Structures are given as structure tokens and as C-alpha cells.
């Protein structure tokens, strides 16, 4: 290999290592027997995993997070797909402005979103409610669905829709029988992003959390802030596993489909 190629490979390897380095710290820590976060661990045990599954505050926040994330996923899929259709297919004035507004939640710093939402939701009584979390997380997740679905729609062969209509399918049937099945892989991708966006969200969630309702990431955050609870490391490791399997699953599905086509 030429020196330039060697250098490129080395740079890529170092970058990858840098990105996964936290994993090599967190995962071993989660198996530590120590009452504090300790790296490298002196003694090994599963006590922090046991603690997670027996402590109600951890379980409650996990269930709350899952419920919120599932609702956010469904809601942002519907809204994001509709928005993507409007942005890619629509012809109307100020289309660029509409696109900008839809994408705004990812551009505005989350702290500002959190603060603004907190001020309003406090008056509406929406803080510490699942609805409040779902509303905010959906706004943050929709742009990701819009991005994946619009790119699928932009490369979509509209002659297929014309063919369907020419063969007697109305607009709704055409969408359901031709468009939707063909962009489904992108919807699945968008769904994974939406789910992770909600399930991972800390910044705005800190504002909305309280004794009545706390999500898992916020529980982890206070687990480190307030009492240095090594359960956090165990939760992190499990989350890592879940996230990895989600993305690996999406990757495998894509491979299988490509092999079939």
C-alpha cells in the first residue's frame, strides 16, 4: 500500500477508536463490585444489574421512557411522512420557509427548546405528564423522519404512481399499495431514529421531569448528579446493547432486501 493509503487507514481506525472509547470504559464499570463508579474495576459482580431490576425508580422511569418513545415514534412517523410528502411533492409559495420550520427543532439549541416549553407547559399543567414528553419529543423527532422519508421520495419513480392511477387506483389506494410499500424501508429507518431521539433525550426532559414522571435518561443523569450510583453504568451498557441491536437489525434487513432484489 502507498503511504497515503496507510495514513488514511490509520486515521479512520483512530477516529473509530475515539468514537467507541466510552464503551470500553462504561461496560467494564457496570460489572464492578464497588459502591462507586470505578475504572478499572477491582472486583467483578452483577449487583448493579440486579439493582436496576429491583429498584422501582429505575423500572418506572424505564417503562415511562419506553411508552413515551413508542408514542413519539408512531406520531412522528405519521407527521414526518405527511410533511415529507408536502415538502417534496407540493407546489406552493414559501415552500423553503415551510421546510425550514419543519427542520427548526434540530437547529435550535435543546436548552432553549426545553426552557421555552417548560415556561408554557407549567401553565398548561403538562410538565411531568406523558403527553408533555410526547409533544416535545415528537417535535424533535419529526425532522429525522422527514429527512429519511424525503430522500426516499426524491428518488421515487413517480411513473409507478402514474401506472397505478392509469390502472384504476385512486390517490389513496395508490399511496397505500404502491408508494408506501416502496418507501417502507426508509420509514423503518426514520422510526429507529425517532425512537432513539425520544429514548435518549435528556436536555428538554430534565425540564419536564419531576417526582410524578421521570424518564430513564433523566434518572441516569440525577443518578450521577445526586448520588453516585453505579447502576447508571449498568443501564448505559444495556441501552448500548438495545441501540446496537436496533441499528444492526436495520442494517441486516437492508442487506437481506438487497440480496433478494
Amino acid at each position, binding site marked *: 500500500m502507498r503511504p497515503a493509503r496507510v495514513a488514511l487507514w490509520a486515521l479512520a481506525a483512530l477516529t473509530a477508536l475515539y468514537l467507541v472509547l466510552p464503551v470500553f470504559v462504561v461496560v467494564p464499570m457496570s460489572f464492578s463490585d464497588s459502591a462507586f463508579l470505578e475504572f478499572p474495576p477491582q472486583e467483578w459482580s452483577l449487583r448493579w444489574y440486579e439493582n436496576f431490576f429491583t429498584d422501582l425508580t429505575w423500572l418506572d422511569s424505564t417503562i415511562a421512557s419506553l411508552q413515551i418513545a413508542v408514542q413519539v415514534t408512531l406520531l412522528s412517523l405519521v407527521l414526518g411522512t405527511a410533511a415529507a410528502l408536502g415538502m417534496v411533492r407540493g407546489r406552493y409559495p414559501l415552500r423553503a420557509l415551510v421546510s425550514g420550520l419543519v427542520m427548526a427543532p434540530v437547529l435550535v439549541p435543546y436548552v432553549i427548546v426545553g426552557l421555552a416549553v417548560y415556561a408554557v407547559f407549567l401553565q398548561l399543567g403538562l410538565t411531568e405528564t406523558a403527553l408533555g414528553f410526547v409533544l416535545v419529543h415528537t417535535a424533535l423527532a419529526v425532522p429525522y423522519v422527514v429527512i429519511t422519508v424525503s430522500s426516499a421520495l426524491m428518488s421515487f*419513480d413517480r*411513473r*409507478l404512481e*402514474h*401506472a*397505478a*392511477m*392509469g*390502472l*384504476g*387506483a*385512486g390517490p389513496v*389506494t*395508490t399511496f397505500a*399499495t*404502491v408508494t408506501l*410499500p*416502496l418507501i417502507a424501508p426508509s420509514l423503518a429507518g426514520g422510526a429507529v431514529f425517532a425512537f432513539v431521539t425520544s429514548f435518549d433525550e435528556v436536555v428538554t426532559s430534565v425540564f419536564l421531569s419531576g417526582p410524578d414522571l421521570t424518564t430513564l435518561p433523566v434518572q441516569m443523569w440525577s443518578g450521577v448528579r445526586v448520588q453516585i450510583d453505579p447502576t447508571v453504568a449498568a443501564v448505559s451498557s444495556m441501552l448500548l446493547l438495545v441501540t446496537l441491536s436496533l441499528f444492526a437489525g436495520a442494517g441486516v434487513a437492508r442487506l437481506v432486501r438487497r440480496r*433478494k*432484489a
Partner: protein
Amino acid sequence: MNETGGSVDVLGVGKTYGQAVALDDVTLHVEPGEFMTLLGSSGSGKSTLLNVVAGFTRPTSGSVTVDGRDITHDPPYKRDLGMVFQHYALFPHMSVAENVAFPLRRRRVRGAELTRRVDEALDVVELGGLRDRRPAQLSGGQQQRVALARAIVFRPRVLLMDEPLGALDKRLREQLQLEIKRLHTELGITFVFVTHDQDEALTMSDRIALLRDGRVVQVGTPADLYDRPASRYVAEFLGESNLLPAANDSEALLVRPQDVRLSRPGADLPAGDHAHDGKVTEVIYLGSGLRVEVELRSGGRLIARTGTRLDPVPRPDDEVVVHWRQQDCVTVPA
């Protein structure tokens, strides 16, 4: 003409995109059961016209009727016309059988009746054995046959085809031309076929409408257009043509290369033949014949197509007399 075919009438249809005129006051009548070809070069408006009939393009003016029913403002899915696209537009996520079943399902055909009619349509295009394949597993010719089966399975009275053979190689194209022609005879429905290929148009059509710059320049049988072109443009569009100055400036004489004969200077010519002296400039061997280019002494060039067994075979720089029978040349408005 057959009762299963519908008549199509295009009345004064115009279509403009901003300043650009795609169709300019087009009127065309298609008989029930007729094979009508819309022929023209790219940008002539032939595809736009087909899309107006199909309902994908809304005309700026004029109307479209099928069997006397005004469908100008109907969406495509209410027109009940079959349509075949150049790039097949098969649904990639469905099997061959599901593709063909699609228009039947939209018409609420179910169960045994559905299966029977799908099988029947696949048999017509001789693809019965491939019903469970995906479109991606088929060759271009097979895909186009599936598209044909899908377009005829619901027994439309009119079938529209937009350059359906454009993406296929020459041999396959010629084979499918004959199959489509056979299908037309068997089904008895009206075909409206778009192509830019004059040979395809001549081979397949009952009548041809030649379009240019959004207007119909001539409608007629292949023989009408080829032998009695209404203008110089038509003459030059269909086949090779020799256009010579006529007695007055507003007309030209058309003689097709295969009607031009070559003789040696001084030879006896049949009485009444038009004759010109010239010199051979180029001879190309085509297998099926020779293409001989002659420079006329009176100015201008002329192409002759002859058999390969001429005696002697013409060579460049040979002095020749080109001649043709009176009835083989026609006057064409210049």
C-alpha cells in the same frame, strides 16, 4: 372494425407550458378497433397528446372524448384506459401475477375469477410460467410483456402505449412489434401507440398521425403518408426520399430511392420515363442491395437503391442516367 374497441376523439386540444406551446389545436379521430400511431420526433408533442388522453396532463384548451363521453376533466383512474409505459413501470414489490392482478383488484374482481383472468392474460403474452417471479428477475422483453398483460387484463376498450419498445434492442423490438400487432387483431380493442420510429409506425399501424411542433401535419394510412405525403416534411420524415425541383417553386418532386433506376448513357429507356444525367459519387453495399449516390449534371444529388446483381456494378465516377417511371414520382408542396 370491432365492437370491443372504443372510439377516441381529440377536439381542438392545446397545451402550453408558460410561453412554450406543446400542443397547438390538435384534432384527431380514432376509429373503434383502430391501430393509430402518433409519430413524431422528440418535442413534437406526441407523448404530451397521449398523456392528455391518459389524463396525466391537463390540456389548456379543447376536449377528449371516448365513445362520445367527455373525459377531459376525469382523473386517470376513472378513465378505464389501458396504459403501457416505455420503462414498463412494473411494481417492483409485487410478483408478476400480483402486477397483473392489480387493475382487477381495483375493480373488485376476487377469488377464482381473479386467478382465472390473470392466468388468461399471462397466457396471451406467453408468460404463464413466470407468474411468481419478481419484475427484477425478468428480461426487458418479458417485463414489457407483463406490462402488456397488466394493461389488457381488465379489458379496456382503448389501450395507450407510450414508446413501449423504445428501451429494447432491435431484434426484440421487431419481434414484439409483431406480437403487439397480433394482440391488436386478437383483442379487437383500439390501440393508440406513440413512437418516434418511422419503420415501427409503418409496420404496425392502421393509420398514422404525424406530429410536428405540437400540430398534426398529416393523418392517414402508412401508404398515404409514404406514397402521398402532404408536405416535404412528411416525405423526409418517412423513409429516404429524393426531392427534386418541380416546374414551379412552390412544389417539389418526390421519388423514393427504390424507384430510381440506373442505366448507361445512351441506353434505351422505357418510354415516358423521367431521366437525368449524372455521375456516381458513392456506392455502399448493404447486403439487401446497393445504395448509390449520384450527382446530377443539373445540380443536386440523388439516392438510388438497387439490387446487388446489376451488370455492371456501378462504381464511383461512372457516368450514368438515372430514370424513373412517371407514376413513381409525386408532387409535394415544398
